[in-house]
């Protein structure tokens, strides 16, 4: 009996020890994803010898094709050109990456070396917490090729990330429906836009405009555009730098938006409509001919192509043939720069303690060669000046023209103001779409959110 019991105790102790061992194993650093490589992680390498094996972890948001494949190729090429360097490249869903994975990785001290950066207020917090490498002086050549579009990824004159793509927002519209409704030219003024809406309503076969207010930001983009048209460049830059929304132009933007909403141009149930998921989303409504217009970023043609692929099961489905693009119309008598454009892009930042090879990889990503391939793939508009003629996609060409003619480029206001103020702003604007609140209420909500920073 006694021996048996001792045996039992010993066995349970052994089991316990195993469990503790397992726990402590998990509690330590995450093992590298590839168990066959024994190379130390980047942060552990102290020497700059090129032969010394280095591993770079690279996180991006390109979960779909062509982007996922392109980044995988770029990583493989970089490995081939730099012996001893291993690049672990991985794509994650955008919001998950932005709101959960990167903040948690930064906080736990196990950050990837090269990762997605959204610019504006998003980067401000990461810089303030000292997580990003100051790239000033390391990427001068690239900065010059990108031009003013890089400003969203700079702070106090220092560069913390580089955008590899940048595009602007405008109206995507159905040429066939416009022709059927008797709209001969794309609207260049707000009055012409109202006129087009009336004609489309009279036609009756589709909602004049689809808006994915259920996703929040697509509705908020209307307010951004009105703010861009009613605010001077000075007011916009003050808002971005100091979160100062005292200029009356921000209330004016809400008043213009109120008039626009009152013309009832949107699809039924827009408060629950999502932006990009399936045929019932706002992009899906336009792609399937159930809505005539959508105000959306440069990616929209690609999104519509994806929806059509899913809906029809046809792997080779392309964005609809009838698709056209025009810039947000000008408003007579408004204080803003009439050619100002609103947009955004994606960039990559380098972690503070990342090996030098991570900066080299970033430079390679922004080389004209890779940037041209990015443009040719149709994934978006490259930022490098020498890669601009690489775009073959006719829809992206339209956006590119709009971008080229813009004298002032404003980063998305929610990105620019950061998650807290930007989120409160979007929420207040969506509520305004739903008939709650006022133009002043939107500005009040932004100021209230600023207080909680």
């Amino acid at each position: 009996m006694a021996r048996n019991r001792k045996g039992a105790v010993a066995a349970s102790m052994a089991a316990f020890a195993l469990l503790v061992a397992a726990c402590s194993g998990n509690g330590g650093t995450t093992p590298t994803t590839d168990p066959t490589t024994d190379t130390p992680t980047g942060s552990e390498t102290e020497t700059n010898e090129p032969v010394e094996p280095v591993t770079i972890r690279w996180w991006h948001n390109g979960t779909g094709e062509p982007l996922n494949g392109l980044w995988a190729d770029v990583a493989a090429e970089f490995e081939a050109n730099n012996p001893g360097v291993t690049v672990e490249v991985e794509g994650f869903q955008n919001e998950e990456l932005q709101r959960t994975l990167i903040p948690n990785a930064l906080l736990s001290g196990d950050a990837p070396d090269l990762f997605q950066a959204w610019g504006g207020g998003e980067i401000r917090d990461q810089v303030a917490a000292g997580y990003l490498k100051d790239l000033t002086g390391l990427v001068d050549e690239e900065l010059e090729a990108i031009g003013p579009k890089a400003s969203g990824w700079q702070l106090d004159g220092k560069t913390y990330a580089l955008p590899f793509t940048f595009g602007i927002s405008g109206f995507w519209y159905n040429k066939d429906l416009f022709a059927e409704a008797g709209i001969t030219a794309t609207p260049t003024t707000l009055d012409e836009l109202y006129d087009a809406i009336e004609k489309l309503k009279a036609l009756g076969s589709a909602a004049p405009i689809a808006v994915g207010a259920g996703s929040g930001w697509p509705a908020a983009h209307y307010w951004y555009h009105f703010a861009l048209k009613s605010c001077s460049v000075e007011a916009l830059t003050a808002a971005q730098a100091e979160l100062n929304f005292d200029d009356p132009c921000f209330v004016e933007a809400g008043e213009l938006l109120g008039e626009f909403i009152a013309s009832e141009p949107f699809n039924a149930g827009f408060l629950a409509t999502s932006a990009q998921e399936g045929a019932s989303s706002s992009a899906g409504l336009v792609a399937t001919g159930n809505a005539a217009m959508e105000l959306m970023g440069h990616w929209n043609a690609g999104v519509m192509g994806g929806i059509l692929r899913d809906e029809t099961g046809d792997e080779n489905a392309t964005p609809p043939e009838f698709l056209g693009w025009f810039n947000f119309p000008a408003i007579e008598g408004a204080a803003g720069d009439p050619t100002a454009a609103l947009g955004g892009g994606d960039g990559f930042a380098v972690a503070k303690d990342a090996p030098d090879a991570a900066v080299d990889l970033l430079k390679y990503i922004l080389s004209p060669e890779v940037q041209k391939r990015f443009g040719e793939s149709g994934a978006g508009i490259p930022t490098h000046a020498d890669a601009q003629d690489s775009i073959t996609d006719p829809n992206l060409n339209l956006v590119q023209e709009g971008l080229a003619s813009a004298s002032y480029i404003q980063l998305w206001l929610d990105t620019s103001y950061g998650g807290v103020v930007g989120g409160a702003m979007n929420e207040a604007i969506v509520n305004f779409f739903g008939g709650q609140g006022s133009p002043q209420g939107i500005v009040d909500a932004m100021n209230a959110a600023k207080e909680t920073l």
Partner: protein
Amino acid sequence: MTSLTQAGPTVPVGPAPTSHAKPRRRHGIKWLQIGMFSAPALIVYVGFVFVPVALAAYYSFFNWNGLGPLERFIGFDNYTRALTDPVFHTAVKNNFFVLIMSLLVQGPLALVVALMLNRRMRGRSVIRLLIFVPYIISEVIAGLAFRLILQAPPNPDTFGPFDAVLKAIGLGELRQLWLADPSIVMWTVFAVLTWKYLGFAILIMLAGLQGVPEELGEAAAIDGASWWQTQRHITIPLLGPTIRVWAFLSIIGSLQLFDMVALLVNGYGGPLNSAHTMATYMVLYGQNRQQIGFGSAVAVILFVISLTVALLYQRLALRRDLEGSLTGREG
């Protein structure tokens, strides 16, 4: 208990020293064993429940965006902000709406169905299976399916899938923006929740009904009781403990409601923030807006509300049931 302590004096009869030493060692080994076997569970419980709750309580006193060190202590500001936010009020109201409606609608409905299914009849097992299917279907699949079924039509002249069914049975007038109308969306959510969890309630009640002795029903039948009288005065009272446990599970589920709401209303909060629950509110304002301190404060409030409701319910409703189960072994 008293009779046992009085019987004590018989013990000292045996030879004292050896018998004293032996039980003590045995006692020690027993505790060691208890420790060994419960340690894994205890470590996991402390590590994944106690520590996070304590950390959340600590974070809740800071203004912290999740990056960098905890530096800006702001006392109870996060709590005041949550408790004075009308959106949070809506969220709490929605949680209690689901809680009360579940008890008032799902409970009686499940009981009636369970009583009917407890009788011998043709195809009983098929019906039981069908009723239980919604509960087995993954929450995400069910949520997305209902979002597609209940979505607004592309333009007002067409009908969404659910509205088309309504129209086909002559109820086309009832069509609504099921998920887009702030005054309707929570009712829609509740209807989907009922579809999803009714099977679970029925299953629990059916299991409880197996424990009701048939003899009682037979005796009542001999005394001339009708089927309804038998259910009303014998079966349902004996089903009490089962109903109370189901209600407890339902209450906790309602307070922590997250997944189905988040799936149905696309993004958190629904139209005009009308479909927030405390959990979606916490994720939106704490996690997505990167105000971890504020989110922690909301988590603590959710924890306190759940704990209070659970303790109250345990004291008031479950006490008799739990006493029975605990004293049963000793007696």
